[in-house]
């Protein structure tokens, strides 16, 4: 707010001391003002004393002494509108002309007082906004929404509104409780050491060292020749380590193969382990066989199973011998090893030149397998070796059988700790083979007696075919041989000329003869004449006879009970008997293979309650025995019946 002064002159005739009222006379009138002030001061301070003092003109001591003429001089004062404090000589640098130029028009405004107001015009933006806010606050927000929306500015303002009208909500997540964990590592291991450091000890040691060095120098010179060998060895080792990588992979792959198989056959595995047929309770004495895995090998399709044997050490491993029973259909043969852990592929595969007729796994050394072939050879395989060939083969041996080998059985190691086994073959001879170093040495044990019906001059030519052989469990020297004519001969290893006993067992081929694992006198035999007969070795006639409607191809005693046995027939049925429970009937007669498939072999697993049966298609089927078939006798009843 500037008040423009009119430039005017004011003549003043007042006394010079009154001139001090002029604002512009600051510089000149300092003293005058000073005097006036004093006067005023005097007046002010002595307000109460005004009436006392009246007008006493006091001269300040430093006032100018002027003459009367000078005092009466008229001094012109000019009032200007210009700001005396504004600079009059402002100079600005002009870039256009490149020199400093004085600015003519200087701002003459002097601001004495400033106050910012808070009044807003109604029609302005801000005013309108405030009015809107007011309306909102008055009416409580939500209802006035449409009104607010109408006003365009309101949209943005809502956010602003929320800034002042907001809710605070806090929540605290669950903090895990702090736990103290402390750990103390084991201190590094310490050891004690003691020694003495003497001059002579030092000397001795140095001397020793020197000697050692001399020796090594001599050796070193001699070793120059060996260096080349070492290099070649190193190369071999490198190659082996490369192979090791793959072989390590093979192990992992094998495990995965088993896992995959387990997954595929998971239900079967579960059944094998845990399934117990509950319906056996309702079936009285009868039992059933639950089929588990089926083992088959593609390349063995044309072959039939001729032998089965469980491994004693590894209870899930069993051997299958494949060949052919038919005389006219002889081809190659195979020896396969399956494990229950991998039902889809055999663990070991061996190809043989002719059909396998029988096999036996050594009781203690479960990697030794003796195999008898159709062409009369016997071979021994070592599972630990990676080769496909048997470690022993009687091919070239002079004492080899001239006909098919029907049964082989391992014996106890002889006096020289050599392994040996005995074989019986269709040429009527029992031969013992001993594994000596790299060859099989044969020892003839006995020749099967010729039957009477053959005329004398042909007795040497036509042999008695031995079909089955079994050794007594306890009395190792005593054995039984079954023949094609249906006779069973009991012999002893100590008597090589004669048999001890002869039993007229069957009318036809005796396919299997087996001692009872528990009872010392009992054995069982089966044959093509549909019969299964149980004998006591002291008696000439059988104790039990069972007729099974078709040729019986194999029979086996159960390892857990002395009264349980199972037989297989050519009509594909498995018959399980328990003499403890039922002396006349089978507890289970079940067809386990498809029609027209003959079963040839049966074996009980020594540990698990399963049996495996081999058929003429080359398949091996495993079956689980139901509880009724697995009853263990409380005492040996078999003794009682005699």
């Amino acid at each position, binding site marked *: 707010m500037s008040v423009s002064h009119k430039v005017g002159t004011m003549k003043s005739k007042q006394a010079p001391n009154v001139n001090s009222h002029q604002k512009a006379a600051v510089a000149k009138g300092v003293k005058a003002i000073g005097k006036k002030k004093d006067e005023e001061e005097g007046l002010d301070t002595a307000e109460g004393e005004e009436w006392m003092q009246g007008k006493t003109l006091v001269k300040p001591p430093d006032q100018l002494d002027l003459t009367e003429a000078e005092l009466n001089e008229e001094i012109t004062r000019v009032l200007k509108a210009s700001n005396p404090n504004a600079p009059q000589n402002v100079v600005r640098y002009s870039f256009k002309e490149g020199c400093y130029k004085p600015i003519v028009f200087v701002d003459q405004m002097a601001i004495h007082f400033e106050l910012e107001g808070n009044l807003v015009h109604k029609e302005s933006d801000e005013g309108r906004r405030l009015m809107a806010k007011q309306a909102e606050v008055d009416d409580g927000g939500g209802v006035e929404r449409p009104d607010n929306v109408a006003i365009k500015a309101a949209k943005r303002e809502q956010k602003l509104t929320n800034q002042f009208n907001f809710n605070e909500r806090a929540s605290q997540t669950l903090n895990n409780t702090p736990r103290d964990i402390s750990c103390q590592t084991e201190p590094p*291991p*310490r*050891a004690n050491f*003691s*020694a*003495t*450091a003497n*001059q002579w000890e030092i000397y001795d040691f140095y001397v020793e060292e*020197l000697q050692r060095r001399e020796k090594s120098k001599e050796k070193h010179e001699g070793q120059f020749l060996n260096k080349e060998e070492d290099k070649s060895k190193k190369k071999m080792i490198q190659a082996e380590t490369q192979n090791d990588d793959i072989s390590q992979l093979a192990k992992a792959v094998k495990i995965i193969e088993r896992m995959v198989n387990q997954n595929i056959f998971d239900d079967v595995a579960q059944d094998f382990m845990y399934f117990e047929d509950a319906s056996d309770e309702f079936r009285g004495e009868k039992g059933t066989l639950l089929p588990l895995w089926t083992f088959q090998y593609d390349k063995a399709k044309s072959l039939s199973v001729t032998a089965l044997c469980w491994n004693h050490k590894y209870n899930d491993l069993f051997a299958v011998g494949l060949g052919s029973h038919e005389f006219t259909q002889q081809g190659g043969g195979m020896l396969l090893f399956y494990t229950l852990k991998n039902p889809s592929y055999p663990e070991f595969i061996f190809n043989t030149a002719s059909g396998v007729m029988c096999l036996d796994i050594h009781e203690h050394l479960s990697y030794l397998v003796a195999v008898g072939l159709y062409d009369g050879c016997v071979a021994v395989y070592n599972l630990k070796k990676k080769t496909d060939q048997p470690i022993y083969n009687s091919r070239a041996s002079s004492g080899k059988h001239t006909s098919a080998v029907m049964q082989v059985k391992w014996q106890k190691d002889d006096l020289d700790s050599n392994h040996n086994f005995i074989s019986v073959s269709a040429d009527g001879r029992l031969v013992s083979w001993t594994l000596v170093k790299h060859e099989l040495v044969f020892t003839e044990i006995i020749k099967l007696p010729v039957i009477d019906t053959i005329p004398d001059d042909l007795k040497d030519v036509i042999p008695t075919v031995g079909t089955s052989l079994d050794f007594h469990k306890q009395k190792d020297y005593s054995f039984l041989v079954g023949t094609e004519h249906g006779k069973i001969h009991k012999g002893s290893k100590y008597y090589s000329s004669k048999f001890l006993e002869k039993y007229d067992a069957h009318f036809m081929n005796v396919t299997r003869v087996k001692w009872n694992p528990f009872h010392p006198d009992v054995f069982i035999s089966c044959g093509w004449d549909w019969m299964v007969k149980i004998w006591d070795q002291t008696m000439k006639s059988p104790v039990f006879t069972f007729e099974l409607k078709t040729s019986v191809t194999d029979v086996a005693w159960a390892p857990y009970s002395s009264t349980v046995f199972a037989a297989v027939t050519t009509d594909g049925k498995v018959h399980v008997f328990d003499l403890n429970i039922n002396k006349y009937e089978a507890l289970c007669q079940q067809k386990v293979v498809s029609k027209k498939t003959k079963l040839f072999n049966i074996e009980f697993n020594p540990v698990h309650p399963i049996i495996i049966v081999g058929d003429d298609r080359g398949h091996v089927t495993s079956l689980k025995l139901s509880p009724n078939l697995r009853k263990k006798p409380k005492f040996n009843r078999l003794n009682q019946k005699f």
Partner: protein
Amino acid sequence: MAETVDGKKEDADYKRLQSFPLIRHTDMPEEMRVETMELCVTACEKFASNNESAAKMIKESMDKKFGSSWHVVIGEGFGFEVSHEVKNLLYMFFGGSLAVCVWKCS
């Protein structure tokens, strides 16, 4: 006279032949052993007359390199029995008559 001369020669030979550093017993790993042996040799050569400073040098270097705390004994005639952390002991001969035993035990 000839014998004494020979004897002296032998002595000189013996000194020459038998002053190489020889490890009497150690259970250190290969690298550590080599390093420690070289350090001992350096220290003993440097402070041939003062076993204490040699030992001090060895001990301080070992502490820095392999952690505390190491113990060093250098001498020509002493017997000892120490407990040491496994794989941290070196007992060697040097210079034909000096024995150095270095072990760690905190």
